[in-house]
């Protein structure tokens, strides 16, 4: 019996090893390979726009990645998939984050200051910023996400916004481009009901989808993460030129566009790059384009990097104002004078802010109360 045991021992050990391997793979299955074989509930997927049929699959035309998707695979955003030869969205009606925020939190400073904005997001993003402030939403797969209690149809979203005395709806937190169809349906309905719409996006979208979306939007907030192509490729996972193209497109369409730049120490805080960026914004978007320099705080994979020194933000703001930009702000530094809006003509303080609070508002009928200068923005509902 001992001899038989010795003979079979190596085989037995190999079998145990294989069982352990299978067990581990079963427990920790890769999200975008094995789980894409698992069928998604048929009620939770919908036909997506911007698809182009190909003999071997489907091409998504929503963003510059133009992902080519064989059957069963998903785009880089994780939420658009080829199901039975058609492009589907996996997150329609399934927001994971629904909150009511002060509009200054977006940050949107040139629309209805001090108002409440109904904010929502689904999972997914077509970029991979290592400093993402909402990485748990943006880098999550839809099957891992816990929806915010229930499916929310566009009608329910609009009704909830009205019921909560919100003047506007923000599509924010993650990347609203990737839940395009949901955004479009809500925005259309919201407009009909007299609500305003704010898009907070990285701007990584193709021209045609952007043109279709913008008629329903009052403000588009674009996160211009840096002004260096290598930075965009390495840290963000995209190409700068497409974001710049989207900004130009927005300007040509006459949409009120605010630009935010999250200043990350050592990655995009080079003052020469900031100078070039400010000049580009001034020349291509106009001097009235609000620009924010937001303070980075340790997040996601950059959790070991200290917060941006305030003097870095102040230097950047000074550069922007010297480049001719009229409305330049410092974000995430409550109480800093850079939070306030000043009249570009008479220099008086128009809106005094402290964090999310409006302490003073000297804009009436869209004009400076002191000298009558017209201030770009939406100041009354």
């Amino acid at each position, binding site marked *: 019996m001992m001899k038989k045991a010795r003979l079979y*021992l190596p085989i037995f*050990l190999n079998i145990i090893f294989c069982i352990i391997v299978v067990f581990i793979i079963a427990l920790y299955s890769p999200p975008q390979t094995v789980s894409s074989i698992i069928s998604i509930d048929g009620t939770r997927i919908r036909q997506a726009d911007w698809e182009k049929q190909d003999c071997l699959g489907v091409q998504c035309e929503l963003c510059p990645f133009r992902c080519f998707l064989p059957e069963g695979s998903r785009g880089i955003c994780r939420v658009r998939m080829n199901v039975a030869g058609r492009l589907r969205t996996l997150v329609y009606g399934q927001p994971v984050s629904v909150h009511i925020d002060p509009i200054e939190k977006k940050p949107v400073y040139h629309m209805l200051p001090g108002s409440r904005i109904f904010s929502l997001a689904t999972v997914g993003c077509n970029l991979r910023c290592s400093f993402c402030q909402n990485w748990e939403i943006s880098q999550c797969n839809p099957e891992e996400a816990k929806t915010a209690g229930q499916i929310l149809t566009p009608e329910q979203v609009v009704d909830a916004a009205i019921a909560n005395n919100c003047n506007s709806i923000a599509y924010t937190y993650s990347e609203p481009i990737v839940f395009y169809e949901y955004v479009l349906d809500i925005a259309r309905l919201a407009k009909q009901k007299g609500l305003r719409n704010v898009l907070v996006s990285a701007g990584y979208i193709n021209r045609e989808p952007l043109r279709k979306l913008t008629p329903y939007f009052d403000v588009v907030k674009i996160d211009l993460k840096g002004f260096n192509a290598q930075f965009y490729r390495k840290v963000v996972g995209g190409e700068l030129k497409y974001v710049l193209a989207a900004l130009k497109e927005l300007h040509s369409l006459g949409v009120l566009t605010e630009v935010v730049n999250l200043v990350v120490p050592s990655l995009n805080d080079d003052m020469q790059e900031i100078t070039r960026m400010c000049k580009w914004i001034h020349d291509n978007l106009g001097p009235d384009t609000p620009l924010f320099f937001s303070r980075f*705080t340790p997040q996601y994979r950059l959790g070991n990097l200290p*917060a941006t*020194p305030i003097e870095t933000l102040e230097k950047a703001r000074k550069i922007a104002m010297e480049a001719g930009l009229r409305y330049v702000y410092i974000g995430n530094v409550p109480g800093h004078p850079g939070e306030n809006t000043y009249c570009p003509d008479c220099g008086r303080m128009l809106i005094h802010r402290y964090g999310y609070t409006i302490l003073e508002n000297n804009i009436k009928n869209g004009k400076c109360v002191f000298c009558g200068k017209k201030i770009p923005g939406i100041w009354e509902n």
Partner: protein
Amino acid sequence: MQNFIFLYYGFLAILTQLVVFRELSVLFYGSELFLGTFLSSWLFWVGSGSLLVRRLLKKERPAAAYFFYGFLAISLLFPAMILLIRASKSAFAFGEFIGPLATVFYTFSVMSVLCFVIGGQFSLACAVVSDKIKIETALGRVYLYEAQGAVIGGVIFTYILIGSVPTFIIALVASLGCIFVSLGLQAEGAPLKKISYRSILLILAALAILFVNFRAEPAINRMEWKRYQFIQQKETRNATLSLVNMGSIKNVFVDGMLSASFPAPESYEPVAHWPLLAAADPGQILIIGDASLGVLKEALKHSPKRIDYVVLDNAFVDLVEPYLERDDIAALKDPAMHIHYADSRAFVRNNKNKYDAVIMNIQEVPNLKTNRFYTQEFYSQISRILKPNGILGLSVVSSENYLSRQTRIFNASVYATLKSVFKAAEVIPGDSLMFLASLSKIDMQKETILGRFNNRRISNHYFIPSYIEYKLQAMRRAELKKILEDTPGVEINRDFRPTTCYYFANFWLNKFASPLGYLVAAILFMVIALSLFKKRRLLLSLSQRKESILIFVLGFISILLELILLLGYQIISGYVYWQMGILFASFMLGLFLGALLGNQSKNNYRRKHSIFLVILSLMIIGLSVCTAHLLPHLIYLPIISNMVIFITLLVLIGVIVGSAFVIAGFLIRADSVMEKAGSLYAADLWGAALGAIISTNFIAPLFGILGALNFSAVIGSAGLAIFLILSGETNL
């Protein structure tokens, strides 16, 4: 002379291990994953070196020559490795957490050459000594002196060198020692070419210049922190503290992890004011956490009568004090402030005061070492020093807008543990989730909190009325509480069942999850499986390697028990550096005594050696099971009694493993002494390598501390069973 050289070899091995560990800790934040990876890579490469060295070297040359060259190589590799580690900090993305795969690959790569050489020296040492004594006893002799040297090296490093001498200087001195040892070997007649003699002098001169020029150390530090304005680095007993500037903000890194920034009111204002505003009258305050200097200043705004501030040692305060703002310095010198240098848990346990508020500001993430600050037992101790309406405040990393599954479970485990002790627990949402707990109801009405804020005339940067109103939105807090309460499958965190740190590890690893990572892991598994499959004929000759298998298993168990017991001691008695050093030295002493005992039995016949091995295996299995039953009862004993018990346990484990190794050396059949020494040493170290990486990362978090001890008993039984099966009837 030879014995002294083997002694120095053991001394050198432990010294390099401890120094390299300190250096790499700065790169990888001393996390559990890193600790396991470091130990396993060290043990793996040293084992590989001992096993493979004989295949790589030319048989015509005597072992003594290679032994000599080995020391020369170490003299160069040791300081070079430190320079490489410090320089490579800038190769990683600035400020970015290093993922698990990168941690494993980097650690295994950077340690490969030096550890391989160190491992090879063991086999070569056995070959050298076998020229003069019997082959069977050569292994025992070298192991005995190596263990002795390791004990001496461990004690000297722990109690004399660390905190007093920079690690790079330690490396240089050790290198000089290698040179002198080489010269001693030369004097003993190791064959030596003339050119090597000149090389020795050159190396000696270069090292002497570096040694004398102490400015090498700050220059190396500046290179390491080149993206900041480096101010100062201090190696303390417990950690490496680095103080660097970024603009006007001073930042303190503890073992490479960003621990505190000054000034940073956005981080310490909420930590201080939430619990103090929740308390009706915070006259007596306890603040726990090294990086809490900013919190002290904020706490004083509430005009308390007394603040007790507990830190492990004075290193942090001494480092930052010259650079603090006037307010922070004034806070430290305030008459209400009382600073205590002690382990926080021990302080809480022995404290007779009653507090209105206890603020926990532990900057370290919940890992196995710090898990004891998030357990039901600790919260029970806190509840005993809180007044009936006193408030406990602590914050953990979370997410403002959405809780992923991993974040939810992690946050829910902290919440559930608090609720198991305290009657009331409130949450304040944010990127750091603030928990407030009390033995009685907590009034978190906006009007109450704002009223207290105004009455106390507090002036802040961030924590202002609009911030308070925003954070206290009832709907959002209620929603968050419901999410935490309804999270299924959450276990309460206990001292011996560290679920919170397991959940946190999942949360942290979620940042790095990617299809590429899975692909690499799958490829690795396939490679291992294929290798095993290809070696199936070799595996069939397992009967010839049964001693190695048993030593492999004992190596696995010994490291698991050692790590678990060190952890268990921290949980029960707190963290005191010199006590931890004694415990570590106890295990090494046990190895030495075991080797001594094992050598006494060198003249016995094979059957008796086999019986001894079986008895030793049974002893360690029994010890694992007994320890699992004993540990929970030790909480009630005085510290001295615990110390004695733990020392005894660790010495016993060391004795068992040390003597088993030597006795296995008598049994193992091999063609040459190097093959015998190499295979057995490799088995011991590879077993320990496997134990190191899975005990802290999987076994302890999954099964708990006590479960891990029982698990080791199961593994020991399996190893013994395999040994008995393979021995067959003839051996026993």
